[in-house]
């Protein structure tokens, strides 16, 4: 029996090829993402482990901000002397390293990375653990001299002797590049500027009495852990974070991890799509192979093979396919990881492909996914194969399963569909975001399953409509292609399902993102009252100098600063919520239209006052007049009085829970020296806004990190940020299309083989090759468009429901991107044409006589 299975596997290798491709793709994405993240993690673990001091003393970070506050947290430099006295300390260094700077060249162009990686200014202090070494020029001496890292110098064409301007929090200063420092380890993508230690503290922190951390090296024979304990005893663990080299490396890696996790999850998302769509392809292939082999299987049964043996034979074939596919997929995955690593170096992160890490989990996952998916997908067809009666060997059945009623499908499909619809209705009617979102998730999954199950039932009605014009336009060729698509609804349904899954996601996501864009537009129209907003692209704060210069610009009237502060509030219902609050200057009402359920701007911004979103307040039993304990960074605690409740459509516009805000004086009090994240600027009386814009652009020319935006620019910025989501959608679409094309090719190729005699007859009675190709192409287009229509219909429903969930977050506008939808339908027709290329060619090349005589 095994021999027969192997023979059959080899005999059908051509037809299994496309299924194998689907497996290869999904396994490749799984393996590639695992290898990539392992490699990156290993590289950075090594980097941080090799560059961290034995023990590091840092300011305590009790509250993490969702947006940078621009404040450099410091420790007193004198702490170094205290630590130096600790027993077992070999050396101590008060380190200065900040990221709240911008460095520009002589033409006011930023030399920092464009990828979102930080620009770091630090003191030049060489140890054997420094990640960089001086490779040309000399170390910085005194103020006015600096080193630049080699990668940045190379990329931005900065040479020794060039002058750079550093926009730091205490003030702007100019430095001459006197040397180049080259990374000895992997460059994580940052731009580095080094100053001599005294200058660094003076000009980056504003005083030589401060440092950003204290780095401690242990004497011989003292372990990091021992030293840590002693340092903790000496300086206390409440005020400072004290970490060993290992701990420091871990937290540094964790900080970097967020970005890498995104890549990993995106890749796994792709893998998921590939697996999901691949399943349809595999199910379909095996179903067709079994349909074709009904006679052969019947003969096996007639000869005495029992059902179990038949089933096992099919499943063995599937496992073989899975093994081959997984192995190839693993190889492709290694290539994919290598490509990603190369891509990262384009972003400035110099990983080496030679240091690729393939953990044991990668091949295990690859084979589990590959073989598992194939096995599961082949299980149903295998069961169907097993019930082939021995009589089938004798009967002249054309295709098994064509005429079988779809009643079970209808029942199961409608039950699941009703459940899914109910979940979606629940999602629309739910009042809370959390429950609404979980209803949405459930509804999406259930309706998808229902559509897949009921797909074959929809084939007839939908394709009747889609292909209705075919006979009129294409004559009998159109009629035959339409009816061929209707011939085996199961097969057409399963083939189209592959396309449907991807396009449903695309439809849903594009409705959601279009709705978000529209909501933000309306929001901006409604709330933004300022003539201009000055801010950085990613809410990264800018130095005080920018604020000063803007205030001094001719024609500027009101300037309202916005500054963020991480806070934790203890709420009356006992919950402790960590979030980020915003601080504003007075005059908010002149730059924004804020509606209040209670209180007003003045009260909220007054000292000791606090404003928050009315819904959040209701949820947590907060009332106007409630006094809440509020924590600020560094363990500072105070109590603030809730003075106003806002009732904005879109309190969560920036994703900050609770929408907490207060006067900017409050921020300054607890986070002194913080930077502004945005300035809302109005023209002074009698100044034309266009004139002001010109002035502002001129003022800010020296500060490339910030941009001036009016409402239209601001909308564009938001749209661009949402577009990133769309790019992801389009990438998903691309992958889904590739696999769907494989599925359609597969189905058509097998249909062509099945209809060999019919094709021979048509050719004999005078169908030209061109006409035959057109017939197959039209069938392919009908199947593809059917999948697209089903997918988009489902996607639209999902999108509308998603918008309902978003509406709870204030995004109340619904937008349906009709152009995208029409483009997708047209695109699917093109997909159909492309998929038909090979099968049509094959059919038209068929020898007429051989086709007529074909059994």
């Amino acid at each position, binding site marked *: 029996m095994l021999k027969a299975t192997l023979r059959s596997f080899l005999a059908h290798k051509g037809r299994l090829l496309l299924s194998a491709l689907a497996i290869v793709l999904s396994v490749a994405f799984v393996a590639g993402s695992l290898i990539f993240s392992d490699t990156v993690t290993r590289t950075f673990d090594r980097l941080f482990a090799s560059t961290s001091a034995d023990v590091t003393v840092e300011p305590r970070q009790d509250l993490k901000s969702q947006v940078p506050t621009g404040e450099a947290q410091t420790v007193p430099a004198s702490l170094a002397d205290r630590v130096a006295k600790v027993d077992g300390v070999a050396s101590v260094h008060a380190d200065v390293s900040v990221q709240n700077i911008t460095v520009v060249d002589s033409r006011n162009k930023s030399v920092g990375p464009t990828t979102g990686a930080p620009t770091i200014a630090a003191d030049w202090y060489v140890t054997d653990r420094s990640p960089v070494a001086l490779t040309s020029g000399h170390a910085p001496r005194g103020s006015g001299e600096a080193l630049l890292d080699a990668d940045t110098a190379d990329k931005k064409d900065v040479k020794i002797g060039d002058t750079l301007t550093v926009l730091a929090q205490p003030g702007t200063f100019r430095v001459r590049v006197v040397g180049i420092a080259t990374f000895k380890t992997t460059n994580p993508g940052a731009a580095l500027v080094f100053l001599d230690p005294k200058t660094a503290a003076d000009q980056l922190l504003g005083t030589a009495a401060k440092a950003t951390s204290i780095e401690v090296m242990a004497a011989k024979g003292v372990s990091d852990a021992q030293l840590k304990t002693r340092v903790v005893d000496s300086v206390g663990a409440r005020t400072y974070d004290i970490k060993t080299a290992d701990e420091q490396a871990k937290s540094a890696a964790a900080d970097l991890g967020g970005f890498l996790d995104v890549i990993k999850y995106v890749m796994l998302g792709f893998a998921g799509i590939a697996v999901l769509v691949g399943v349809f392809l595999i199910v379909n292939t095996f179903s067709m192979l079994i349909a074709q082999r009904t006679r052969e299987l019947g003969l096996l049964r007639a000869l005495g093979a029992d059902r179990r043996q038949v089933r096992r034979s099919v499943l063995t074939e599937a496992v073989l396919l899975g093994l081959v596919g997984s192995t190839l997929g693993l190889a492709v995955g290694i290539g994919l990881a290598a490509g990603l690593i190369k891509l990262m170096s384009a972003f400035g992160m110099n990983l080496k492909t030679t240091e690729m890490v393939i953990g044991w989990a990668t091949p295990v996952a690859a084979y589990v996914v590959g073989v598992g998916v194939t096995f599961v997908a082949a299980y149903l067809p295998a069961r169907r194969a097993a019930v082939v009666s021995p009589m089938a060997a004798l009967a002249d059945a054309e295709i098994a399963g064509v005429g079988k009623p779809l009643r079970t499908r209808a029942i199961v499909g409608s039950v699941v569909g009703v459940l899914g619809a109910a979940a979606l209705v629940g999602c629309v009617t739910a009042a809370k975001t959390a429950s609404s979102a979980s209803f949405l998730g459930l509804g999406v999954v259930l309706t998808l399953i229902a559509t897949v199950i009921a797909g074959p039932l929809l084939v007839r009605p939908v394709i009747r409509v889609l292909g209705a014009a075919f006979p009129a336009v294409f004559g*009998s060729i159109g009629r035959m292609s339409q009816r061929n698509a*209707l011939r085996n609804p199961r097969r057409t349904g399963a083939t189209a399902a592959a396309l449907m899954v991807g396009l449903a996601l695309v439809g849903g996501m594009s409705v959601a993102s279009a709705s978000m864009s529209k909501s933000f537009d309306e929001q901006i129209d409604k709330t933004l009252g300022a003539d201009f907003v000055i801010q950085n692209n990613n809410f990264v704060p800018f130095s005080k100098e920018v604020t000063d210069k803007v205030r001094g610009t001719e024609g500027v009237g009101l300037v309202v600063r916005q500054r963020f502060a991480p806070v934790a509030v203890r709420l009356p219902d006992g919950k402790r919520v960590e979030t980020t609050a915003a601080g504003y200057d007075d005059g908010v009402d002149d730059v924004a239209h804020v509606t209040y359920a209670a209180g007003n701007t003045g009260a909220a911004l007054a000292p000791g006052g606090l404003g928050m979103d009315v819904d959040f307040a209701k949820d947590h039993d907060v009332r106007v007049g409630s006094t809440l304990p509020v924590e600020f960074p560094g363990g500072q605690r105070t109590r603030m009085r809730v003075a106003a409740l806002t009732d904005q459509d879109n309190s969560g516009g920036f994703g900050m829970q609770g929408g907490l805000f207060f006067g900017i004086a409050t921020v300054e009090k607890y986070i002194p020296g913080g930077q502004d994240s945005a300035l809302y600027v109005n023209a002074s009386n009698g100044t034309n806004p266009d004139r002001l814009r010109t002035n502002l652009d001129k003022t800010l020319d020296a500060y490339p990190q910030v941009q001036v935006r009016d409402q239209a620019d601001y909308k564009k910025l938001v749209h661009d940020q949402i577009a990133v989501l769309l790019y992801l959608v389009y990438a998903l679409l691309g992958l889904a299309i590739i696999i769907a094309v494989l599925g359609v090719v597969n189905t058509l190729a097998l249909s062509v083989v099945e209809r060999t005699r019919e094709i021979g*007859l048509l*050719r004999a*009675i005078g*169908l030209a*090759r061109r*006409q035959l190709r057109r017939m197959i192409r039209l069938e392919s287009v009908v199947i593809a468009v059917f999948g697209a229509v089903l997918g988009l219909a489902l996607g639209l429903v999902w999108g509308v429901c998603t918008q309902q969930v978003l509406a709870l977050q204030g995004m109340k506008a619904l937008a349906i991107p009709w152009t995208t939808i029409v483009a997708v339908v047209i695109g699917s027709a093109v997909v159909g044409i492309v998929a038909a290329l090979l099968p049509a060619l094959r059919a038209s090349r068929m020898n*007429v*006589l051989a086709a007529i005589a074909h059994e």
Partner: protein
Amino acid sequence: MSTSAAEHAPGRAPADGIAARARGLTKAYGSGETTVLALDSVDVDIARGRFTAVMGPSGSGKSTLMHCLAGLDTVSAGQVWLGDTEITGLKDRELTRLRRDRIGFMFQSFNLIPTLNAAENITLPMDIAGKKPDEKWLDQVIDTLGLRDRLGHRPSQLSGGQQQRVACARALASRPELIFADEPTGNLDSRAGLEVLGFLREAVDRLNQSVVMVTHDPGAAAHSDLVLFLADGRIVDEMERPTAEAVLERMKRFDVIRSQFETDEQFETDGQFERDKRFETDGQFETDEQE
């Protein structure tokens, strides 16, 4: 000889022209030492307005002859004309058009497109050509074949005999110059077979069509005006106004000759038998004869 199909005189006329003609028609399979001749320099004239049967034992080349005359297969040497058009040397596209517009086909089985109903199947060659069928003629054909109440049925809803009648109607519908029927009764029971043969006869007698039928059944051949006997790729005999008994007698003689040399030739000519079997669907000849 060059009169067009439309100018046929009605009624059962004697040969009033040549519908198809072959000179030195040779079809060889394989090359070098293993070359096998399926047709060996055949000269044949198919008379217009007559019912011609081609008979011969398995491997005699009768199906190959039909395929070559109908432009379905290429020839190795010689020339073939349909009417006054030489079809040898035509490209696939021209041959396709020729088959579509000027030839009608009936095969032993699988004659109809399963997705189309009877009416759509009948007009298919004209639909493909983008031509309007001649409604009057079509009505006449449909009524002659008694298909009026079956037009909306799909092939799967028709009996074997009805299916062959639809195929016959399709072959007649475009009023072709020549109809080729390859074992049209091979898959039918004797009553349905007789019916189909009757219709072919009527097509010639009443509708003035020209029919070439390949068959192994002496009874079927007896319905024709002329029987051509093929053996080993040559036309060895012909018989006007045949009867089943006479044809059977004639065939028996081949059988003797054939069984004499089949034994020593079979191994050398394996290739030919293999290939011929794919085109010919008889092979029950001997059993038929014994019955």
